[in-house]
C-alpha cells in the first residue's frame, strides 16, 4: 500500500516556506466578506503593489470574533503575529506602513497576538489568554482563521489526512470502537452516540451503504457548520471518509443549504484537490477502499435539516419526513443503510483518531464528552463563534467569552437550540452545558446557536417569532404540526394584540403538549419548546399582556402608549414633523403632547427625539 509520506513532506515544505515569509492575511469567511473583507483585501493588494512591499497577501477563514470583522493578521517572521480587528480599507495604508515596513504593530487596532516562538509583545493579549479565548478550546476550530481553507497542502501540512491514513491499516470494528470510546455524540442537536450509530450501519445488511453529511444548518442564529465548512472543509471530508471506511460505504453525500454558496464552493474545491492527490477516488492509496463524495445543494426548506426529510430531498422529492423506524441506519438513502451525521460531528472524527479517544474523552462531562462550537448572537458585546469544553456554564459563555450584555442592560434569557430549543432564564445561568442538563431545563443543546436577550426583549414576542418561523417551515405532512402551529401562532398574535384571554394560556399549553407528544418528526415534536419554556419561566409576562393589557418589555405595539415627558421636551418639533399620523401637537419651544387616539405606535417620534423625552409605557 502507498502512503502519504512523500506528499506530506512536500506540503510541509510549502507551508513552512509560507510561514517564513512576511504575510498579511485577511479573514474571508462569509461574515468577513459581509463586513467588507473583500474590499480590505483589494485595498491591501493595491497598497502592496503600489509601494512594492515585500510581503505575501493571503486569506483565511473566520477566526470566530465576528464582532471585530473585518480582521487582518500581520505576520512578520521573528515577531509575534498580530490579529487586527475592524480594519477597513482606509486603515490599510497606515497598518502596512507601520507594521510591515517599520515593524511596529498598531497597538490600538490590535485584538490578539499569536507569539509562536517569539517573545510576546507588551500590551496585546496573547490569543489563549485573551478574554474571548481564555475559556475556549480550539480543536474542531483549530484551523479556522489560521490556515488557508482553499489549500489542501496546508491541511496536510497541519496533520490532515493522517487520521484517515491510520484508519486504512485498522480493523473496521476498531475504528468504530475508538469513536465509541471517545464518547462523541451527534453535534446536530439530538446527541445520539456517534459510535453506536456507526455500529448500526456497520451491522446493517446491504450491498451498498452511504455516508451522508447534514450541512443544512437552518436554525436562525446558528452558523458553526458554515464556519467549519468554509474554514476547514477537508476535515469534514476526512471525517466522512473515515466513517465510510468504518461502515463499508463507498459513496458520500453532503447536503448543504443553497444559502451557503461559499461553503459549497470551498467544498467542491476541496473534493477536486483530494481527488487530484488520489485521496478520494478508487482504491485510495492502493487499498481496496474506494470513496467518492458529492455535494447536493438544498432548495430552501428548513425541514430538510430533519434527517429523513433530508434523505427525501437528496432523492429529489418533497422534503417531508418519513416515519421511523425504519431508521436511516437500516433503510436510508435509496433504501440503503446510511450513516447520517452533521458537519461538526464529522469534523471531530479526524482529531479523535489522531489524538486518541482518551484525549477527546478527558474534555467535557461524564455523559457529554469533548468540545462544542457555539454561535453567540443577540444582545451581547461580542458576537461570534466559540468552541468550549462541554460542561462550561452558560454564565461563563455569556459573561466571560461574549463580554456580557450590550449597553449595560440586564440579562433576561438565552435561547439555545433555535426554534426547537427553549428560553433559559437567569436562574439557570449556572447550568453546565451538556445534553442532559439543557434538556432538564426544557431546552436542548441543538446545533449550537445561543441567542441572548436582554430586558428589552418581550418573551411573548420571542415565542411568536419562533412559532412564525416553524409555522412557515412546517412541511404539512402531519396534522399536529401543520394545523397546530398555525393555531398556536394565532393565539400568540391575539395575546400580543391585547385581545388575549386567560384561557388562551391553557389552550397554548394543551396544543404544545399534544404537538410534542404526537407530531411525526423531531422538528415537529420540539417546535413547542419556545412556548413551553417561556410559559414556564416568564408566565407573568403572558399574564401582563392578557390581564393588564401591558407589554412589560415595551415591544408589543398594540399594548403601548407613547407619552412625552414634558420636563425633557424642548419643543423642537422634530417629533411633530416625523409623526406620520399627525398625532403630535404643541407650540414651538413648548412641551408637545401625543394624541393617543391618533397615535399608530410606529415609533418614528422616538427615533427622532434627541432629548430622550418620549417614552413607551
Amino acid at each position, binding site marked *: 500500500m502507498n502512503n502519504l509520506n512523500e506528499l506530506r513532506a512536500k506540503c510541509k515544505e510549502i507551508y513552512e516556506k509560507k510561514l517564513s515569509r512576511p504575510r498579511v492575511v485577511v479573514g474571508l469567511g462569509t461574515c468577513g466578506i459581509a463586513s467588507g473583507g473583500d474590499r480590505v483585501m483589494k485595498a491591501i493588494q493595491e497598497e502592496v503593489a503600489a509601494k512594492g512591499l515585500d510581503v505575501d497577501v493571503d486569506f483565511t477563514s473566520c477566526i470566530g470574533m465576528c464582532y471585530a470583522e473585518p480582521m487582518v493578521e500581520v505576520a512578520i517572521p521573528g515577531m509575534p503575529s498580530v490579529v487586527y480587528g475592524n480594519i477597513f480599507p482606509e486603515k490599510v495604508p497606515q497598518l502596512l506602513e507601520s507594521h510591515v515596513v517599520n515593524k511596529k504593530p498598531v497597538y490600538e487596532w490590535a485584538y490578539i497576538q499569536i507569539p509562536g516562538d517569539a517573545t510576546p509583545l507588551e500590551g496585546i493579549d496573547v490569543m489563549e489568554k485573551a478574554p474571548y479565548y481564555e475559556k475556549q478550546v480550539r480543536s474542531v476550530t483549530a484551523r479556522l482563521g489560521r490556515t488557508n481553507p482553499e489549500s489542501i497542502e496546508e491541511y496536510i501540512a497541519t496533520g490532515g489526512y493522517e487520521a484517515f491514513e491510520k484508519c486504512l491499516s485498522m480493523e473496521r470494528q476498531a475504528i468504530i470502537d475508538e469513536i465509541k470510546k471517545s464518547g462523541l455524540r451527534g453535534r446536530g442537536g439530538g446527541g445520539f452516540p456517534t459510535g453506536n450509530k456507526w455500529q448500526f450501519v456497520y451491522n446493517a445488511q446491504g450491498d451498498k451503504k452511504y455516508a451522508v453529511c447534514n450541512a443544512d444548518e437552518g436554525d436562525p442564529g446558528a452558523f458553526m457548520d458554515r464556519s467549519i465548512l468554509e474554514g476547514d472543509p477537508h476535515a469534514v471530508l476526512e471525517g466522512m471518509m473515515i466513517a465510510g471506511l468504518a461502515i463499508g460505504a463507498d459513496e458520500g453525500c453532503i447536503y448543504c443549504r443553497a444559502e451557503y454558496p461559499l461553503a459549497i464552493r470551498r467544498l467542491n474545491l476541496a473534493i477536486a484537490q483530494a481527488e487530484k492527490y488520489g485521496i478520494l477516488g478508487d482504491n485510495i492509496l492502493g487499498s481496496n477502499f474506494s470513496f467518492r463524495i458529492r455535494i447536493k445543494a438544498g432548495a430552501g426548506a428548513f425541514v430538510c435539516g430533519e434527517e429523513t426529510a433530508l434523505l427525501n430531498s437528496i432523492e429529489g422529492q418533497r422534503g417531508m419526513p418519513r416515519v421511523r423506524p425504519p431508521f436511516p441506519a437500516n433503510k436510508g438513502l435509496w433504501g440503503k443503510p446510511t450513516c447520517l451525521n452533521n458537519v461538526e460531528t464529522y469534523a471531530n472524527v479526524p482529531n479523535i483518531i489522531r489524538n486518541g479517544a482518551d484525549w477527546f474523552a478527558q474534555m467535557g462531562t461524564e455523559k457529554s464528552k469533548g468540545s462544542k462550537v457555539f454561535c453567540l448572537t443577540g444582545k451581547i458585546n461580542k458576537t461570534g463563534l466559540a468552541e468550549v469544553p462541554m460542561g462550561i456554564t452558560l454564565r461563563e459563555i455569556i459573561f466571560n467569552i461574549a463580554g456580557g450584555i450590550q449597553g449595560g442592560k440586564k440579562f433576561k434569557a438565552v435561547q439555545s437550540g433555535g426554534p426547537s430549543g427553549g428560553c433559559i432564564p437567569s436562574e439557570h445561568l449556572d447550568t453546565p452545558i451538556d445534553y442532559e442538563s439543557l434538556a432538564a431545563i426544557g431546552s436542548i443543546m441543538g446545533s449550537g446557536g445561543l441567542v441572548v436577550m436582554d430586558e428589552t426583549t418581550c418573551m411573548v414576542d420571542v415565542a411568536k417569532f419562533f412559532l412564525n418561523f416553524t409555522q412557515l417551515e412546517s412541511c404539512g405532512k402531519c396534522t399536529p404540526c401543520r394545523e397546530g*402551529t398555525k393555531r398556536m401562532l394565532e393565539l400568540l398574535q391575539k395575546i400580543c394584540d391585547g385581545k388575549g384571554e386567560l384561557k388562551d394560556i391553557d389552550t397554548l399549553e394543551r396544543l404544545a403538549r399534544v404537538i410534542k407528544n404526537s407530531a411525526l418528526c423531531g422538528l415537529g*415534536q420540539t417546535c413547542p419548546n419556545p412556548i413551553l419554556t417561556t410559559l414556564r419561566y416568564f408566565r407573568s409576562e403572558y399574564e401582563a399582556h392578557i390581564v393588564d393589557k401591558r407589554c412589560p418589555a415595551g415591544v408589543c405595539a398594540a399594548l403601548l402608549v407613547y407619552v412625552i415627558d414634558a420636563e425633557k421636551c424642548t419643543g423642537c418639533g422634530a417629533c411633530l414633523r416625523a409623526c406620520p399620523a399627525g398625532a403630535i401637537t404643541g407650540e414651538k419651544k413648548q412641551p408637545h403632547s401625543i394624541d393617543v387616539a391618533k397615535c399608530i405606535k410606529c415609533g418614528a417620534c422616538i427615533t427622532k427625539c434627541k432629548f430622550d423625552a418620549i417614552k413607551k409605557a
Partner: protein
Amino acid sequence: MANVTLTINGVQVTVPAGTSLLDAATGAGFFIPTLCHDPANPGYGGCRICVVEVKGARALVASCATEAANGMVVETESPAVQEARKTIIELLLANHPTDCLTCEKNGDCRLQDYAYRYGIRKSGFEGERHSYPIDNSNPYITRDLNKCVLCARCVRTCAQVDDRQVLDFAYRGFNTKVAPAMDTSLGESDCVSCGRCVAVCPVGALTFTSLTGKGRTYEFRKETVTCSFCEAGCKFDLNYKGGKVIAVTPNAPGEGRPLCLKGRLGMELRYVDKPVTPMLKKDDKYVEVSWPEALGLEDVLARIKELGE
C-alpha cells in the same frame, strides 16, 4: 415467521412478527381511529390520529407505522392518547366546513364518526380557514378541498398506477393541498376518472357526482359485481336505493389492471335503471357522447349493421 407477544390494554396479545400495532390492537378487539391508514399502502403515519402510548417511548407512536415487538406495553386510550386524538380532531374541524347536514358523506365520514366518538361538538380553535372553490370540472368526481384532511390516501392510490400519478401534494405547511400538476382543476388534468381516489377518501373531499343528491349512504345497499369488459375482472358496486340501481361506483381493481372509465360506464349502462348520458374528454373539454362511442363500440356496431344488411 416468529411470533411476538405484547400487552395491549392489559391483555396479552400474540401476533406474527412484523404486524403493526394497529393490526395487533384491532385484531384483539380494540378500537383505534385511522384517517390516513390504507391497508393497501400502509406506513404513511401522517394524520397521527392512531397514536397510542407505548411504555418507555419518548412520545406517542403512530400505531399504523409501528411494528409490534416482544414485551411492548401498549395503551390505546390513555389520557395522553385521548387528549392527542381530541385535539387532532379539533384541529381538523377548525379548518373543515361543518355542513354535515348537507354533506354527501354524512353517515359515512371518518371525521364525523370520530368527532362523535370523542365528543367533539365543535372546534375550540378559531382562525384562518381555507376557502377553495369546489371543483366539479370533472363530470364524475366532485372535489371539495375544504374538506380534505391531507391524509394522502388519494395521492398514494393514484400513484400506484405508473402512467397515472395525476395527484400529488403541492405547496407546504398550512397551505399544503392535493393537486394535479400546475394546480389545475381535475377536469383540466390527465385524470381518467377511474374513481379509485374517491373510493379511499375518508371524508367528503372526493365524492361521486353520480350520487350527488341521490340519497344518504345508509339508504343505499351495495352489491358487488365483476366487470366483464376485459379479463382483468375489476369489481364495481351497484348502489341500490329502494330496489333500483342509482349508480355504479368502483370497488377494487382487478389483477394488473386499474379500474377504467369504460368499464364503469359499461356497468352503468348494464345495471343502472336510468343511466345518464356519458361524457368523454375531447379537445380538453368534456362533451356528451353516445353510448357506442363511450364504450368504444362504434366499429363493432357498424360491422354488425353491415353484416345484418
